[in-house]
């Protein structure tokens, strides 16, 4: 990026074109004249301006969150571009922290078993994502590629789920998931889903599924029929074609649906809060963990900030991995039509 950026900035300032005769024109005017002559330059300049703008606006709050984390708890006042209490002169005195509190990133794990909360969230999000992608793929395939009576109404039915505040589902579900179901007794301690990952995976799968269904419907519908045909001729079933050809070709859509679902579940709070008792051993997720730093009155903002920075890392890694799937031009070279 940095290389490219400097390149881009050259575009603004580089003034050594010999064909520019008027010396007394202002820099900006000269630049404007050039851009009119060479629209590519304008696009490039625009592009870098936009990139930098987006980077600054999205990253700044993170930067600030980091500063909040580094601020010693007692000083959580007037946190600016540097943590409050930051004092570079302390370095001279051998204080490497310069008045900040990097130890907070350890506190995150010593106050509560935060890693276990992360693990819980990770497992629940992974399982949910897999379930959602599989089930939504079937539905997306049906809605995107097949014609059958009742398609419109059925899609609407899926959509309607998202019309309701999640709270509207909760009270009946609470009864359901706390019911002691005898056949579940061998698997679950008291035969109810409370305090088990199932109590989260099941509702999340349903509640986050409509989005994935719609995303996948859109993407699957755009894969040319010819490719599915070719797969079927080669000997797959219709389902085989879905998983071997349509899904890989819709990788941007599948990866996006996956990432969105994963993140949503990873950070979900409402259901997981009510479906577990909040303890790490009982599959409480990461947000429950973060809220453990919040006392009746006293809130450890700095530890919460640090914890959320730590907690975001797996998602960042996921995005890095998933984006490799969101690669360009997948359908190029497939068809002559």
């Amino acid at each position, binding site marked *: *990026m*940095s290389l490219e950026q400097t390149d881009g900035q050259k575009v603004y300032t580089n003034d050594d074109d010999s064909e520019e005769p008027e010396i007394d024109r202002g820099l900006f005017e000269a630049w404007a004249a050039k851009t009119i002559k060479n629209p590519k330059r304008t696009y490039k300049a625009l592009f870098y301006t936009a990139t930098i703008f987006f980077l600054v606006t999205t990253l700044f709050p993170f930067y600030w969150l980091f500063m909040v984390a580094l601020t010693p708890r007692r000083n*959580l*006042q007037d946190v600016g571009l540097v943590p409050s209490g930051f004092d570079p002169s302390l370095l001279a005195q051998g204080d490497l922290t310069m008045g900040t509190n990097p130890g907070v990133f350890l506190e995150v794990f010593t106050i509560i078993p935060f890693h276990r909360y992360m693990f819980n969230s990770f497992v629940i999000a992974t399982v949910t994502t897999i379930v959602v992608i599989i089930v939504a793929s079937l539905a997306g395939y049906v809605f995107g590629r097949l014609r*059958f009576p009742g398609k419109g109404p059925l899609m609407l039915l899926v959509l309607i789920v998202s019309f309701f505040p999640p*709270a509207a589902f909760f009270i009946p579900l609470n009864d359901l998931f706390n019911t002691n179901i005898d056949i579940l007794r061998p698997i679950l301690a008291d035969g109810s889903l409370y305090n088990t990952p199932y109590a989260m995976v099941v509702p999340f799968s349903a509640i986050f599924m409509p989005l994935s269904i719609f995303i996948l419907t859109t993407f699957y519908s755009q894969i040319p029929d010819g490719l599915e045909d070719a797969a079927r001729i080669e000997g797959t079933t219709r389902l085989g074609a879905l998983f071997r050809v349509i899904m890989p070709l819709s990788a941007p859509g599948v990866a996006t649906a996956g990432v969105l679902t994963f*993140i949503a579940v990873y950070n979900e709070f409402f259901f997981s809060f009510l479906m577990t008792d909040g303890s790490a051993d009982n599959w409480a997720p990461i947000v429950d963990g*973060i809220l453990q730093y919040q006392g009746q009155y006293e809130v450890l903002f700095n530890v919460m900030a640090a914890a959320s920075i730590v907690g975001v890392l797996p*998602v960042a890694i996921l995005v890095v991995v998933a984006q490799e799937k969101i690669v360009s031009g997948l359908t190029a070279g497939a068809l002559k039509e």
Partner: protein
Amino acid sequence: MATDHTNSPAETGADSGGVFSGFLTWMENLSEAAYAYLLLIPGFLLLALVAFYPLLSTLRMSLLADETRGAEPLGGFVGLENYIDVFTGDTRLSRQVIDVALTSDFPFLELGTPFFRQALFVTLAFAILSVLFETIIGFGQAMVLNQEFEGRRWVRVAIILPWAIPIVIQGMLFFLMFQPTVGFGSEIMQSIGLFGDNPLASSRDSFIIVLVADIWKTSAFMALLILAGLQSVDRSLYDVAKVSGATPWQRFKLITLPIVMPALIVAMLFRTMDAMRVYGIIESTASCSTVPSMTCLVIDGLFGGTRIYGTAAAVAFLTAALIGVFIAVYLAKFRDSEGGFM
């Protein structure tokens, strides 16, 4: 088929073999419609259990009277009374869904309580503004990410990252930022005259904070989906367009936009629905009492301590109805968009 069928598996029925084969063959032979219904079963089973059943139960709840004390959480059947009460303000809700008073002067209506304190207005204004800005910004971000440049993967992570932040933390972040003793947000906004002294105590200022917080976080959602749409455009179409003389803007308008449209509409559709159910960011930034949304009222009714399940369920259904009205517009568009499928 004649030469070497020694040690070569059968030509017909490739995916078969094993326990499944009978089932798979049966499935393969289903008519398109039957096959469609079959594949929809898992999804709809899940939805039936976790969504449709609870919703029906909530619907029933909305037709029963509130019962704030006693062992039974719900009273007798009251028909649509809860719904009517919600509109007339005759409920135990801590904020008005809508409070419009009749006057004798033109336009014969006036807001009983200010704009930013009515759940309906907050919900609508929030949804419209946030979706508008998120779409524009998300599209911009997606366009940037769609370019090939060095470091693109890192820029992509950076832009997606806000979406990965739990709402609680997002709320905390903006809360602290606008907490005058901690952050500098209020100061800046006050100095440019946008905010009053205590933004988090002002419904209007808090509304803007919540809006900005949501845009910051959720533009990434839009960007991700739109980017995926952009990536699915067959590059050779751009070649054709270029040779036909299309400028970048024309390529965007005539090729990119129509092909991305279905993905864009899905993104906007779900963002709109989400925005109209906004709750978490409000509660963790400015609190529902400062910026009440429809969902705030539902949560308040169901979990607020005063047990008013009937009213809360009615508000939930009213929220759904409101969303339904909005969504109808999208659905119409959806049908029109190329590659649309409903």
